[in-house]
């Protein structure tokens, strides 16, 4: 079995909220992906991906902003990591 990983950043920490960024890494080697290769996300939300068989490996941890840094922004904060295990030979 080989692992496929899907990274979905959402508009909020709620898994039903909209996907705002996405990445796909294919451990089967069947698909190559790179920056800027798509205009539309593969799913509208994490929940939609779950309904298509993706397992959630990680949910974002929500932390209170540090005093004095309440308005600071950086890399997108609400990132979910999802996986599928795939038989590269197409069995099972």
């Amino acid at each position, binding site marked *: 079995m080989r692992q496929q990983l899907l*990274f979905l*950043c*959402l*508009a*909020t920490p709620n898994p039903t*909220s*909209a*996907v*705002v*960024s*996405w*990445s*796909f890494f294919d451990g089967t080697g069947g698909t190559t*992906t*790179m*920056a*800027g*290769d*798509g*205009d539309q*996300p593969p799913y509208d939300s994490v929940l939609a991906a779950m309904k298509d068989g993706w397992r959630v490996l990680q949910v974002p941890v929500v932390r209170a902003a540090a005093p004095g840094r309440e*308005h*600071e*922004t*950086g*890399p*997108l*904060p*609400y990132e979910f990591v999802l996986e599928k295990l795939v038989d590269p030979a197409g069995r099972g």
Partner: protein
Amino acid sequence: MDTSSLPLLSSKQMAAFVAHGFLRFDEIVPPDMAAAALDELASGAGPAAWRADDPHASDAGRPLGTLWTRSPAIGPVLRLPRVAGLIHSLLGPGALYDHHYAHVIGPRQPWSQPWHADAVLDPRPLAFDIQLMFFFHDTPREMGGTMILPGSHLRRANELEISRVQNFRGQLPTVCPAGTLIVIHHGIWHCGQPNRTDRARTMFKVRLGPSGKQLRSWDVTDLDDPDVIRTLRHEHPFTGSQARLEIVNRIKLWRCLTGDPTFDIDYWLGRMGEHAPAGR
């Protein structure tokens, strides 16, 4: 250079830069100058007095006005009134040269550069450098060009730590006619795109910084135009529930650029006592 007669940016254009992190000027470089600039880049000559004999000399930190003084094309491009005017508008008088680079992507180069922000994380809270990105030849989508994420420029990301992301809602590839200039805030997230054509793609980048305060150095006659606030409160689709934080950070930058510590949008900073006596 006499800057008193330069065509300056408007407040609406400055607000667009603050909101989106870039401005685009199609065909700002005339075709003959663009062709000559490509020839000059191909020669490998540097900016300091056309100093082909000393290619490793550092010109970083020198006034832009002292560089490319004898170059046949790059210097004249940078001294085009509209180009010089936008540099003055964004940075104030006496812009300083940081570095330049001719990004040449060969034919049939299938890979994208990962998303990144240039240079190491910049601790300046509000001051900014600009990067001029010149596309001297036609750049169709299959040729790339540089993809940017509008509205990402005020988010703190160090170089490649955003490289795990492949796509963002709102990402914008540069597709433009020859002679186009894209001016970006130093913090904007971007990546070079694959070149699927049989021709090399060239993007000439120059990074410039301010030599003093960036304060009301544009044409402020339209400062009270309602489009200024309308532009500053634009919400980019990738920001999700942080959209208002982005607008708060733009308010802070607009206060700095205009010298108006009371500027606000919907009392968002005012309600926090941002211009109340200290400690209140």
